[in-house]
């Protein structure tokens, strides 16, 4: 009799299993009361009213943006940092599916999920910043400003989001048990990865290229015709470091999902990712100096902003490079994980420097973010984390779905 019952689950019980992890509604809601959730709830309690004010009263009500400083925290952090840190999706996807590094397969899905959610919440952040966010589709469907780097950013982010979604869909179809859709989606993976790598190259560098139109406003130590290359290389490094960082957190928080084999090999994979990041950081370090040489700005190094440039390049690029190398030599995942955090901070620092510190550096009316801008950024990150957790708790991201084990 139990067999018969098991063969015909009702839609309600299916929904319960998919959404509430098999618990009853009251059980599930009780289980939601955790310290993290309480903090998240408090953040949302402030964030939601600020959001309502922003959209009903205009940007001036919640930001310190001005005519001289049109871009602030939401562009500098939510968009620029968000896109750089979400680059792991394309980096790992390319490494595994195109360069054939099959042993990194277990990190592909978490990386793609980070990439997909990263870009998605970048778009959310962008919608806060745009004057008329409902016109976001305009550069795609209404009027084509082909002379603009921003046009490229818009198109590529939109296409790339779709790409990452397609790359993540196999996990969704495994969750929902849609075998045929899944088979068809898997065949698209290589094509989606190639397309995603092309798009990533272009929009990561395009975000840097935006600043090519501001030679008078961006400090010469950060302004360079090579800024697109700087952004691209640092994005790869940021993506790899985020995969390390996210993996470290996931393995601790969701350790019950991960089987013993994955735990054992994870440290080795971490060290391998650190090795790749070390190479990237080393190249990036050299590139930054080529940029200084290209403009012959050596004399600017001995100014306050010059000193800040040295801090960014030595403490947050060269030092993590050496630490990664040390971690690889000692085969220590611990050192690599610490370095990943330092690197991520360094990339955030670079994007903040380019967009807010070195930008308009010599202007009287300097910008600094209002507390409500921080609220929105933190709220978006919190919702992103909650979404990540919701998905990881339900879909086969950190483990291989038992029904499809034979394919891996």
């Amino acid at each position, binding site marked *: 009799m139990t067999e018969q019952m098991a063969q015909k689950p009702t839609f309600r019980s299916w929904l319960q299993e998919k959404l509430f992890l098999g618990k009853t509604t009251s059980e599930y809601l009780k289980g939601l009361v955790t310290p993290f959730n309480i903090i998240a709830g408090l953040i949302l309690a402030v964030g939601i009213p600020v959001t309502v004010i922003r959209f009903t009263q205009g940007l001036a009500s919640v930001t310190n943006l001005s005519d001289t400083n049109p871009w602030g925290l939401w562009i500098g952090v939510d968009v620029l940092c968000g896109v750089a840190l979400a680059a792991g999706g394309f980096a790992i996807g390319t490494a595994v599916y195109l360069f054939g590094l099959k042993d990194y397969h277990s990190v592909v899905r978490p990386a793609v999920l980070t990439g997909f959610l990263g870009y998605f919440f970048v778009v959310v952040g962008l919608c806060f910043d745009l004057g008329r966010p409902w016109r976001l589709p305009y550069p795609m469907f209404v009027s084509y400003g*082909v002379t603009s780097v921003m046009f490229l950013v818009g198109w590529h982010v939109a296409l790339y989001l779709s790409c990452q979604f397609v790359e993540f869909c196999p996990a969704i179809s495994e969750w929902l048990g849609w075998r045929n859709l899944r088979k068809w989606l898997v065949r698209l993976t290589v094509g989606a990865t190639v397309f995603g790598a092309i798009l990533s190259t272009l929009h990561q560098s395009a975000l840097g290229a935006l600043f090519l139109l501001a030679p008078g406003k961006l400090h010469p130590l950060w302004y360079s015709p090579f800024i697109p290359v700087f952004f691209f290389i640092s994005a790869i490094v940021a993506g790899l470091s985020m995969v390390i960082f996210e993996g470290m957190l996931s393995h601790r928080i969701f350790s019950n999902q991960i089987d013993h084999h994955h735990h054992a090999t994870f440290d080795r994979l971490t060290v391998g990712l650190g090795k790749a990041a070390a190479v990237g950081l080393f190249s990036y370090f050299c590139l930054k100096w080529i940029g200084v040489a290209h403009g012959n700005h050596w004399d600017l190094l001995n100014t306050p902003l010059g000193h800040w440039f040295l801090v960014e390049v030595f403490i947050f690029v060269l030092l993590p490079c050496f630490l990664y190398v040390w971690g690889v030599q000692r085969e220590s995942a611990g050192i690599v994980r610490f370095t990943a955090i330092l690197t991520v901070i360094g990339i955030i620092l670079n994007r903040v420097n380019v967009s807010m510190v070195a930008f308009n550096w010599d202007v009287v009316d300097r910008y600094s973010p209002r507390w409500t801008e921080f609220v929105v950024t933190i709220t978006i990150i919190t919702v992103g984390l909650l979404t990540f957790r919701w998905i990881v708790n339900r879909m086969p991201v950190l483990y291989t779905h038992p029904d499809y084990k034979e394919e891996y």
Partner: protein
Amino acid sequence: MFTLHDFMHLTKGIEYLLAVCFLAVFIAFWRFLDKKKRSKDSI
């Protein structure tokens, strides 16, 4: 064509269209080139 801007507007439009067409044609091109031969020494 009196301004660089107008010139670029025209040329970038054509360049992008060409590049997108290339991508589409490339897929067909690759699939044709990569067809499985019955012999064992295919790349």
